[in-house]
């Protein structure tokens, strides 16, 4: 049965997810339209506006169906992970499938109208090392690092006094549904997850730096400054989220160690926020920044040379989702659509990184069961 606090939590997660899905087309680079290389001026062609409209219509339909399914499932299971995890995974699949449909149609329209035929394609790179020094310092990770350290110290010192049975799983309201015998696994499960989270976020921070920044040849200076802003904001977001997540796990662990007791309401709030804060954060940063800061306004006297376009690499993007280019040594690149980074799957090292990531996720899930 769905209780009202769960409904509120669902709203905190579901509404931002929906809005995010609707707005995704607005967040990508200005020279891409649903993952197809097209100059910005072309994006307002009636055929393309029609595609965007249809994409949004289908998304709304699929999204409503998907979450209704989740609501129905909540009558069968009361598990937090199944509901949210399942809902988010379904959303990701729907988003991707819906995107691929639009991507292929836009690609066909491009071939038909030859929109890029008379444009010169250029790769622009910035040799200046100064422009690379605007990144957020890794040293900031001391902040979530200290929180993690405190959690571990707290757990080690409280361990001898712990009772013989420890809570293993709790429901939405913080009621224990499963108990475990005291041991390293049960007492340190949360700090272990916390440490994993810290490592993951640090890794994302490294990826933000490493990922290739595609400079728009029609206005390179603006482009570079936008990338700087984007790097800074997304790094800050990652740092903020990392800090919030380790604090969240510290709170949970403090509760397990019986150092604090939380009311049912407090439990709902903390659980809800653990999902809502990162999600709303993405929303805010994406809205004001865009993936590579296409939405950041830059004061400039630079003239736009509309005859130039970034190199058309559409052919290396399978379904507009997976990048496979054996002649490109880059490992990390920006995603074609949406927000985030992806790998060049033609690079053996990239495939290795991907395999390790999958293993880590699989191990995390197994550990959780």
């Amino acid at each position, binding site marked *: 049965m769905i209780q009202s606090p769960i409904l509120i939590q669902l709203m905190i997660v579901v509404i931002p997810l929906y809005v995010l899905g609707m707005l995704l087309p607005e967040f990508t680079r200005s020279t891409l339209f649903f993952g197809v290389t097209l100059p910005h001026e072309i994006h307002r062609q009636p055929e393309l506006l029609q595609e965007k409209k249809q994409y949004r219509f289908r998304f709304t339909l699929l999204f409503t169906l998907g979450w209704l399914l989740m609501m129905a499932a909540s009558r069968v299971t009361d598990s937090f992970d199944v509901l949210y995890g399942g809902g988010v995974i379904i959303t990701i699949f729907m988003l991707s499938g819906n995107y691929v449909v639009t991507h292929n149609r836009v690609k066909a329209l491009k071939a038909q109208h030859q929109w890029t035929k008379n444009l010169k394609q*250029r*790769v*622009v*790179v910035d040799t200046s090392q100064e422009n690379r020094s605007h990144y957020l310092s890794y040293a900031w990770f001391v902040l979530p690092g200290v929180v993690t350290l405190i959690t571990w110290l707290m757990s080690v010192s409280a361990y001898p006094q712990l009772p013989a049975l420890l809570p293993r799983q709790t429901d939405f309201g913080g009621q224990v549904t499963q108990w475990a015998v005291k041991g390293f696994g049960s007492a340190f499960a949360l700090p272990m997850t916390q440490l994993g989270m810290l490592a993951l976020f640090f890794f994302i921070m490294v990826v933000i730096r490493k990922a290739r920044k595609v400079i728009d*040849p029609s206005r390179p200076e603006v482009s570079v400054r936008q990338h700087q802003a984007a790097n800074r904001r997304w790094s800050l977001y990652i740092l903020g989220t990392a800090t919030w997540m380790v604090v969240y796990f510290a709170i949970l662990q403090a509760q397990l160690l019986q150092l604090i007791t939380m009311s049912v309401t407090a439990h709902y709030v903390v659980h809800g926020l653990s999902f809502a804060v990162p999600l709303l954060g993405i929303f805010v940063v994406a809205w004001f920044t865009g993936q590579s800061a296409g939405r950041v306004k830059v004061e400039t006297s630079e003239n736009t040379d509309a005859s130039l376009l970034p190199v058309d690499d559409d052919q290396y993007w399978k379904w507009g989702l997976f990048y496979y*280019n054996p002649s490109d040594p*880059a490992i990390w690149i920006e995603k074609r659509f949406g927000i985030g980074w992806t790998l060049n799957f033609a690079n053996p090292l990239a495939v290795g990184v991907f395999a390790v990531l999958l293993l880590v996720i699989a191990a995390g899930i197994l550990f959780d069961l």
Partner: protein
Amino acid sequence: MFLSIAFESDIPLYQQIKNQIITGIAQGKLKPGESLPSVRQLAADIGINFHTVNKVYQQLKQESWVVIHRKSGVIINPDLNLQANEPYRESLKDTLEVLFAEAYLRGVTLEESQQLLKTIYQSYVQEVSK
């Protein structure tokens, strides 16, 4: 400085990069002692093979446009001291001869050529006097 590379051009990639770095030095966009990206970095940024970038840097080093340090990487030669000696003047004449032969055959006038040369030359002089 921005490098602008055309993949479908008749000019080989390494030549495009090399030309633009030399022009950049003349125009003052690359200052003596300024660092250039590492081979790996530049290759990944452009999306081309490491060897291509390596070739550019090795040639630039041989012609003393850049120096390569094991620690500080590739930098624009801080003691760049080029002389317009006799062999150089000869090779310049040879190069121009071919270039203007084609220009002449294509109907580019002497006035137009002179104007073009002036514009190009001024882009170097003006930048240096800044």
